[in-house]
């Protein structure tokens, strides 16, 4: 059936079964390939997107449950005041290695930094622990979050 959802500020309509995870709606129906399929079970965080600013695992979020919540993905972060600072910090510190998990990392970090503008190490680790990185970029992720916390918004790309 048809579902009208708001993605990165745009109204979109998709015709899919209600149990289709938001991840596959984004990737295959809306051609937004930034959110990644990792485990399909909410364990790895590669598929993390925002619903009304809250980080959720899109692989476990049926499209029928999205309703009127605003969906934000990595493709929308360049227009997000916190997201764009994180993207700039990620570039500055050369965080990615293979890069597959990094969209999810940035989405979770955006939620963290939006709620807590200057997190300490323990707060970063607690917020980020659900996003795993096979390349183990955790040290630079932590540094980039701290860097983003002090980048003026105007310097974000």
């Amino acid at each position: 059936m048809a579902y009208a959802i708001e993605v990165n500020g745009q109204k979109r309509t998709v015709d899919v079964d209600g149990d289709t995870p938001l991840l596959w709606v984004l990737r295959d129906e809306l051609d937004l390939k930034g959110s990644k399929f990792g485990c399909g079970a909410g364990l790895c965080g590669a598929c993390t997107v925002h619903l009304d600013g809250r980080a959720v695992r899109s692989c476990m979020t049926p499209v029928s449950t999205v309703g009127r919540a605003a969906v934000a993905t990595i493709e929308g972060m360049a227009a997000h005041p916190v997201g764009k600072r994180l993207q700039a910090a990620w570039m500055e510190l050369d965080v990615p290695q293979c890069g597959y998990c990094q969209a999810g990392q940035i989405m979770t970090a955006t939620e963290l930094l939006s709620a807590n503008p200057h997190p300490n190490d323990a707060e970063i680790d607690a917020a980020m622990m659900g996003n795993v990185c096979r390349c183990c970029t955790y040290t630079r992720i932590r540094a980039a979050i701290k860097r983003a916390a002090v980048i003026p918004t105007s310097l974000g790309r």
Partner: protein
Amino acid sequence: MNIVSATPTTKSAQSRAAGAAPALLASRRMFLKATAIAGGGLLLHSVIEPLARAGMAEAAAGTAGDGAAALNAYIRITPDGIVTIMSKNPEIGQGIKTMLPMVIAEELDVDWRNVRIEQAPLDAAKFGQQFAGGSRATPLNYDPLRRVGAAARQMLVAAAAQSWNVEPSECSTAAGLVVHGRSGRSLGYGALAAKAADMPVPDPAAVALKDPKSFKIIGKRLPGVDNPQIVTGRPLFGIDVTVPGMLHAVFHKCPVFGGKLTSANVERLKALPGVHDAFVVRASEANRSDDPQGISDGVAIVAKSWWAASRARERLEVTWDEGATAAQNSEAFARRAGEIAAGAPTS
């Protein structure tokens, strides 16, 4: 040892294979060849030479529609001076897509800011061995790719010298320019590229290499070339590739190595929404070479989306003849190991 080639048969769905054509397998022969190289130091002329020559073989391809001149398989230069360098190996997070072009750019003597990097397609005739594994990319490619860059630089110098009617030895290069010091003239690589592509292709073994003391790119810490795509979520990985009319499939295989499929409800699966086809795959037919890593018995479900295929798999009813392997277990292995260890040594 872990070998990953950019092929659909490896487990690296996350390998950044976008743009890579299907299919060169990391063959057993290639593996053995690479292993032999890793173990010894006698490869200089047998391996480095063919690699650099493979890169040169594509030289003088002339100018393309965008005015880009190909100096060899790795290097294209457009009239605006932008240099596109092919990166030959699969990028899996080790940074090779950035590093290998750095080596070429150094000897070509260009400003890194004017370099664009493209993932090379799989084409061993053009690019030599293309795989990731065993930390061998730098030792195997460092010298040959320096020569690829140096040979192209020599062709650009030859083109400029001919334009000025001077000896190439009177010319030098700096950051994308050929300079004739005595007369103060200079020409950009962009202006020279088309003419350079018609110059004789140098012998890669004989080209002059830079003194490492003058390196401007090698040894510098440069960010990964794919970082902009990664942090903004633009398509990059194998899983992100789409082609017109693309369908998605799941393959459900026997849980036991060597097991045989006895029945599957494929007709019922075919009737499910979004499913285009469902069929049994027989290892005996699909895997004639008896490759132990080859495909095993199973059921393929092809659908309009991965989700539709995955949902259909939940409705799959399949039975297997798991064969003798199903009776194997860790306890039996340990018991057998103990028996062997207690026995007399055999040669």
